[in-house]
């Protein structure tokens, strides 16, 4: 069966009739956006913007039970809250500026912690282009913030453009004749010309949709962990600074671990293959983690959650009058999920305004982006595979530490390893780009030399590349 026909079946409860309504947006067309996280809000913003430019008057309703102004997990779309360098720049180019009260901290550098030592990698332009934000209104039991959550800010942008918010939980979406029907938990039910699913991966609705049709596969997911530590602004400034702290530790199944400073709190994010208690215990007991906190003691967790993360795209991510965006469609593996939400939201908005809402339209104009993201994720798996090898090899870690530290200490030196690590941690570049850069002969040559030099006994290496010159890092 063709992809285009698969979602046709989604919850069909009445016999199919001759399709009569046009499959392009018209004046007065109604669009339901299910979920107003970054994907849903940005879709609503762009679709209204583009429709306006085309002289079309469409009605956009965003279904979202959350208000994003409560503290704790109930008010937040659980995430590390890093808005990547590439997304900050793209939003600024679009004219969407992240206001000061949305940005909890501007990130200037990454500090890589390994058992062989730590090294700080400064932003290439010495400028704060990565934003640490809250997705809700801060951790549970925190003081009410005088700042604004990222999701709330985007939601308000969409509202200002003219989208309306329906604070209801959607329990079912199905096709009736040639329109889509949306049902809510409180029996509210409405028909739409297009339904945009932006529910993320932590929603029961995706489960319902999967059970209704054999061909639709909701995104693959795995469990992650996030928690917040209350340390106070002063301590955070002194111990963490404007740096995101990432860990490369020999802990199986742990792909990425980061401490992200924000206001009075530090957010910890653990990503990998089904993060569980045993893995967390090993992480918290490692000296590299303990040493990051004042007195080497891990403080009590002010707030925590175990959200799931998308590790495999939904299939198919579209049908007639139906499209899945953000985490519920396709996203980047472990990195820049908000950036992928923006990209898929905008691609879907362009498709519906300039081409139409049929499965063929989505296949021609939306699916290529999802494919590009998925293909890049395959390369991401290779890159994370190398990361796992490095995690297991102290020999490799020494070489990487040495190469990075030397690059950071000498401003005129090409920053090959620093650039690779920067883009990998920040999610600023596609995995394919990162991978190709590691094949450059100069990168390989320098890595080879540093692997040798970093593992020879101290004193055997002449100046210029010697350990004595590495001031930007601490060796353990």
């Amino acid at each position, binding site marked *: 069966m063709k992809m285009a026909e698969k979602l046709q079946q989604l919850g069909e409860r009445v016999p199919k009739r001759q399709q009569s309504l046009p499959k392009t947006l018209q004046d007065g067309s109604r669009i339901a956006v299910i979920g107003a996280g970054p994907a849903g809000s940005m879709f609503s913003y762009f679709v209204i913007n*583009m429709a306006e430019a085309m002289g079309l008057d469409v009605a956009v309703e965003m279904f979202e039970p959350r208000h994003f102004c409560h503290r704790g997990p109930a008010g937040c779309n659980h995430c590390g809250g890093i808005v990547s*360098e*590439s997304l*900050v*720049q*793209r939003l*600024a*180019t*679009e*004219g969407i*500026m*992240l206001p*000061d*009260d949305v*940005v*909890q*901290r*501007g990130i200037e550098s990454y500090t890589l912690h390994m058992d062989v030592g730590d090294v700080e990698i400064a932003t290439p*332009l*010495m*400028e*704060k*282009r990565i*934003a*640490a934000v809250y997705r809700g209104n801060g951790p549970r039991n925190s003081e009410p913030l*005088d*700042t604004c959550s990222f999701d709330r800010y985007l939601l308000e942008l969409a509202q200002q453009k003219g989208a309306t918010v329906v604070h209801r939980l959607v329990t079912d979406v199905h096709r009736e004749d040639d329109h889509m029907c949306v049902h809510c938990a409180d029996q509210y039910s409405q028909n739409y010309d297009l339904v945009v699913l932006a529910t993320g991966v932590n929603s029961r609705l995706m489960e319902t949709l999967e059970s209704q049709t054999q061909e639709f596969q909701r995104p693959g997911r795995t469990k992650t962990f996030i928690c917040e530590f209350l340390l106070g602004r002063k301590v955070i400034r002194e111990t963490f600074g404007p740096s995101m702290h990432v860990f490369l530790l020999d802990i199986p199944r742990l792909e990425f671990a980061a401490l992200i400073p924000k206001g009075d709190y530090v957010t910890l994010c653990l990503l990998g293959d089904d993060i569980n208690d045993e893995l967390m215990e090993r992480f918290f007991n490692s000296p590299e983690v303990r040493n990051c906190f004042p007195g080497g003691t891990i403080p009590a967790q002010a707030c925590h959650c175990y959200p799931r993360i998308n590790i495999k795209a939904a299939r198919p991510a579209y049908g007639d009058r139906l499209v899945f965006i953000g985490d519920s469609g396709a996203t980047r593996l472990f990195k820049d999920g908000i950036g992928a939400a923006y*990209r898929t939201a*905008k*691609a879907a908005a*362009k498709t519906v305004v300039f081409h139409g809402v049929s499965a063929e339209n989505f296949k021609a104009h939306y699916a290529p*982006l999802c494919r*590009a993201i998925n293909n890049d994720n395959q390369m991401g798996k290779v890159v994370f595979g190398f990361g796992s090898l490095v995690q297991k090899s102290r020999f490799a870690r020494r070489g990487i530490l040495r190469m990075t530290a030397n690059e950071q200490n000498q401003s005129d030196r090409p920053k090959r390893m620093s650039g690779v690590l920067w883009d990998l941690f920040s999610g*600023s570049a596609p995995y394919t780009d990162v991978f190709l850069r590691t094949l450059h002969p100069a990168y390989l040559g320098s890595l080879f030399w540093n692997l040798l030099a970093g593992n020879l006994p101290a004193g055997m290496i002449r100046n210029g590349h010697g350990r004595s010159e590495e001031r930007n890092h601490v060796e353990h």
Partner: protein
Amino acid sequence: MANLGKQYQNGEVIVRQGDAGKCMFVIQNGEVEAVAERNGREFRLRKMGPNDFFGEMALFEHETRTATVRALCPTHVLTIDKKNFLGGIHEDPSLAFRIVQTMSHRIRDLTDRLAKYEEDSQQN
């Protein structure tokens, strides 16, 4: 609360006329002025504030900066680098829409000013 971008103090030059450029800038907060220097004299071209951008020509051409831009008060400015911008345009050409729109406003403004200048010089 925190700012993104790099901070410039009152009077500090952000880009200098004649320098090579590889990026454009978006003002996060504060105010800047763009001035053109001719024969040792400065002419103010325009003032700009939050969300305005400048230096965009460097993204499309290999020419040097056509004006000097300096901060008029403590100002945060975000750099948009060529690689990110062109990569973005390649995936999504509509990313350039706002820039094209603003450049079009600026051409219109310059045309008006030129017409007025011609008119004034003919009257004198």
